C-alpha cells in the first residue's frame, strides 16, 4: 500500500494544538500531562480532561504503542492505491490515536491486534508533519 501524501487532507492547527504540530516538525510526538493529577492525555487542550486543572505540561511520547483495533477500507480513496487499514494505536503512555500503518501488508493475516508499533513521521507540507505507525523494528 502506498500513500500519495499530496492527497492527504492537511490538518489546520489551532492555538491549542500548535505545540503538537511544532513537535512533529522536530521529530517529537508530544502529549500533555496534568501536573496535579499526572494524567497523560490526547488530543491537545490547555487543561486536564480528568480533573480540569489548567496546570499542565507538554511531554514527549516514546513513540511506542500497540494495535488496538482497525478496519481495512476496500473503497477507493484518492490518497491510497488500494485497500488500506485505518488503525487505532494505543500508546505506551495510555492514550489512543488514529493512524495508518506503514511498511506492512494491509491484510487481516498481517495485522494482529496488540502487535507492537512505533511512530514514523511523514511531511505533508512545509508546516505539517503527520504521525503514522509501523511495526516496531521497521527501518523506514
Amino acid at each position, binding site marked *: 500500500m502506498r500513500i500519495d501524501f499530496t492527497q492527504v487532507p492537511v490538518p*489546520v492547527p*489551532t492555538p491549542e494544538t500548535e505545540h503538537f504540530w511544532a513537535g512533529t516538525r522536530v521529530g517529537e510526538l508530544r502529549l500533555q500531562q496534568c501536573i496535579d493529577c499526572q494524567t497523560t492525555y*490526547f488530543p491537545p487542550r490547555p487543561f486536564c480532561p480528568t480533573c480540569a486543572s489548567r496546570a499542565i505540561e507538554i511531554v514527549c511520547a516514546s513513540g511506542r504503542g500497540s494495535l488496538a483495533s482497525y*478496519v481495512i*477500507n476496500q*473503497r477507493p*480513496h484518492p490518497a491510497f492505491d488500494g485497500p488500506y487499514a*485505518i488503525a487505532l494505536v494505543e500508546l505506551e503512555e495510555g492514550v489512543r490515536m488514529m493512524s495508518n500503518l506503514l511498511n506492512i501488508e494491509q491484510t*487481516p493475516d498481517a495485522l494482529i491486534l496488540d502487535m507492537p508499533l512505533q511512530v514514523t513521521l511523514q511531511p505533508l507540507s512545509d508546516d505539517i508533519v503527520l504521525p503514522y505507525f509501523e511495526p516496531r523494528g521497521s527501518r523506514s
Partner: protein
Amino acid sequence: MSRGEVAIVGAAETTELGRIPHMSQIQLHADAALNALADAGLGISDIDGVATAGESPTGVAHYLGITPNWVDGTAVGGCSFMLHVRHAVAAIESGLCRCVLITHGESGRSNVGRGGRVSAASSLQGQFESPYGGMGPTTIFTLPVLRFLKETGTTLAEMASVAVSQRQWAGKNPRATLKTPITVDEVLNDRMIAYPFTRSQCCLVTDGGGALILVAADRAEDFPHKPVYILGTGESTETPMISQMADLTTSKAFKVSGARAFSEAGIDHGAVDHLMIYDAFAHLPLYGLEDLGFCGRGEAGAFIAEGNTLPGGRLPMNTNGGGLSYMHSGMYGMYALQESVRQVRGTAAAQVDAVDVSVCHGVGGMFAASGTVIMGSSATR
C-alpha cells in the same frame, strides 16, 4: 420526571420510503408531519412546540406555518429524536407547551436539498482523524469492533447473525427495503466494505422521514389511536472522536442513557416485551444488548445467534428489519421510535403479541451520543 405523564398520540412516517428523488429534505419533514397530524386527528394550529434535527426547528416551523412557543434543535446525530422525546416530556410536564411535534426528514439517498456534513480541517477530528482516510461511518463507526470481538470472544459469524435475524423480521414487512432471507455464510461472503464488515452488515442508504406528536397523558385518551405512554427516558454523550472512546468495547453514553431510562420507568429487563436498538451496523445491537444490561459481557452475539431476538423469540428486537433491512436515511432514530409506537399500539407489520413495554435505544454520531425511550401501553402506565 414523572412516569407516564406524557404520551405519544400521533406517529407516522413519510408516505414513501426508499428512493424519493421528487421531494426535498424539508418536504420529507413536512410530509411526515402532515401524516402524523392526520394520524392524531389534529390540525397544524394545535401544535405549539417543535423539535427537529437535520434541519433547523426554525426552518421546519416556518415551512409548516407554526409559530411555536417552545423549540428544541438538539442535534446529536441519529438519536436526536429520542432526546427530543425526553425534552418534550419535560416541557409538557412543566407547562412550557401543550402539544409537541417532532419531525425528521432526510434525503439520504437522493441528496435533494440536503446540507453537507464535513468536519473542518481545524477541528480535532480534522487534525487527528481525517488525515487517515476515514470515509464516513463505514470506516469509522466500525473501527472499534475487532477489539470488541477479541475482548468478548464474540465471533464474526455471531455478528453476521444480527443481519440474518433482522432480515427475517423485514421479510414480514411490506415497507422494508430488503426482504429476501439471507444466511450467515451469505453475510460473511458478501462484498467486503471495510474489513470485517461486509455490505449486508452495513446500513441501507435511503430517503424518508417520520414525525411524532406528544401531549399530556390526561388528554391522551381523546385521540383516535391507543396512547403510547412515555415511561422513562435517558440521554448522554461520550466523544465525537471514535479514537477517544474510553473503552472500545463498550459505550459510556449507552450505559448512562439506558440506566437512566430504566430507573425512571421503574422496570427491570424482564418486563420488556419488545426492543429496538439502532443498528447502523451489525455490531451496534451487540454493544446495545450488553450496555443496556439485557445480556452479560460477551453474551450478546450468542444470544442473537441462538434466535432469541427472532419472531417467536423471547426478546423480539428490531422488528421493522432495522437499519440493515428496513431503511436508513442517515439519522435512523425516528424509524426505531415509529416501530416502538406501532408495536405498543398493536399495529406493526410484524406485530409481536401483547407489547406493553417497548425499549427504544438510539445512538448518535459514531458512539458519540445516545438516547433511550421506554414506551408503555395504558396497562403499564
